[in-house]
């Protein structure tokens, strides 16, 4: 589903991705690990089509995520490393998502409920005024409600309490069939149950890649 071929991405003289090749197939749940600065976020953003590679390419279902971004993003759910300070209210944010990506608002509410986030009570509040954990829950609810075949999480559990993490992993477990789940994490023990492939990156390269 995702094919990364000899991808190199530099920022100035710094090489963030150094000739990386890997493929991700259906029914794979991948833990992507490595020290800070290893290039995990850069790899994810390349898959999302945010970066113009210096060389190599990324194909998602055969499509180029930069040139055919709308078709590619139709099938991707993404939660970033840090929830951004979006000024829209929850209602407006859901409107943005339901219109642009055909996501059912009721379903967002449903998953938010499961994550113990009360959207109704906060519907007119600005997203950035929610607590760190609440923002993360909201983004997770959206990512689950969006019917995607590729789900990408860039360290999504940083702000979650243990209870919320359990809820999250439970929901994810129900949702991973027939999908690619790409998970950046520093806590392998937490996601061990969930993943069937572990990739380590260091200094912009994949240093180990094993199925478990």
């Amino acid at each position: 589903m995702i094919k990364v071929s000899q991808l190199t991405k530099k920022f100035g003289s710094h090489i963030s991705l150094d000739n990386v090749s890997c493929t991700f197939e259906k029914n794979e749940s991948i833990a992507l690990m490595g020290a800070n600065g290893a290039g995990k976020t850069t790899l994810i953003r390349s898959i999302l089509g945010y970066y113009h590679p210096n060389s190599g390419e990324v194909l998602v279902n055969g499509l180029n995520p930069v040139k055919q971004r709308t078709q590619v993003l139709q099938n991707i759910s993404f939660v970033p490393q840090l929830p951004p300070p979006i000024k829209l209210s929850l209602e407006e944010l859901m409107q943005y998502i339901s219109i642009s990506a055909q996501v059912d608002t009721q379903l967002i509410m449903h998953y938010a409920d499961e994550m113990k986030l009360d959207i109704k009570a906060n519907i007119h509040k600005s997203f950035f005024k929610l607590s760190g954990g609440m923002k993360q829950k909201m983004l997770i609810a959206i990512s689950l409600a969006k019917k995607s075949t590729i789900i990408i999480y860039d360290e999504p559990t940083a702000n979650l309490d243990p209870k919320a993490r359990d809820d999250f992993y439970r929901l994810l477990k129900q949702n991973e069939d027939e999908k690619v789940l790409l998970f950046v994490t520093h806590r392998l023990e937490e996601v061990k149950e969930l993943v069937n492939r572990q990739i380590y990156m260091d200094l912009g390269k994949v240093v180990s890649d094993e199925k478990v």
Partner: protein
Amino acid sequence: MKNLYLIAYLDLKESIRAKWFLVYSLVFGGLIALFFIAGVTESQVMGFSGLSRLLLMYIQITIVILPIFILITTVRSISGDRENHILEYMLSFPISLRDYYWGKIIGRFITVYLPVLFAMLIAIIYGFFKGADIPWNIFFLYTGLLFSLSSTFLGIAFFISSFVKSSEIALGIAFFIWIFLLAFIDIALISLMMQQRFNEELIIFIAMINPMELFRVAAISLFDPELTVMGPVAFYILDSMSQSVFVLLSIAYPLLVGLIFALLGFKIFEKKDLV
């Protein structure tokens, strides 16, 4: 198309809630109110009276503060969203860059133009109830001039926003452009003129490329169709075109400048890394 409207609509809603918008509206509304309180409409200064006088004063202040307002409030729109990772999330949904960028521009345009327009409308309505003569030709000219002035600076702001690395730098560039167009060009040209190194036509041509200068001249052209206040410059301008062509040009040209800058900004936005 629906995504374009969606982005414009949400950006508009977000802006209207923002504090800068409140300040912005109060400034322009307050300006008009101040004129009324100061009795500008009742006075007879420089031969114009009533509402015309008020509108002229309004436009002369607006030409100075509107550009800097537009620049500082919008120059960070794309670069700011990039900096604080809003783009990274918002663009992870299937929205084309075209819809996102132009949607933002449309939303911002409405936000910056409406308060300025409303302020003028208030003046007209107030004047109407006071039984004043409504100078419709001036009103329509200024509506058009402000429309195109807003688009110039909005285009420039989005252009800057598309390539700067940080919002701070964006602000710095914006401020420089404002001062440059407002005063530096004039000062430089005046000194050139005094040294008599270049011919006047060339200098006037350079002055009129500046949308702010063109705007200034157009704003007084209805009061002074011969453009006598401009001295010999008027001769060159009206020699090459009629007054109505000049007015049309003074609306069309800044509009075009704004569009070109906005388009350049879009090209850069497309070509550069998004986050």
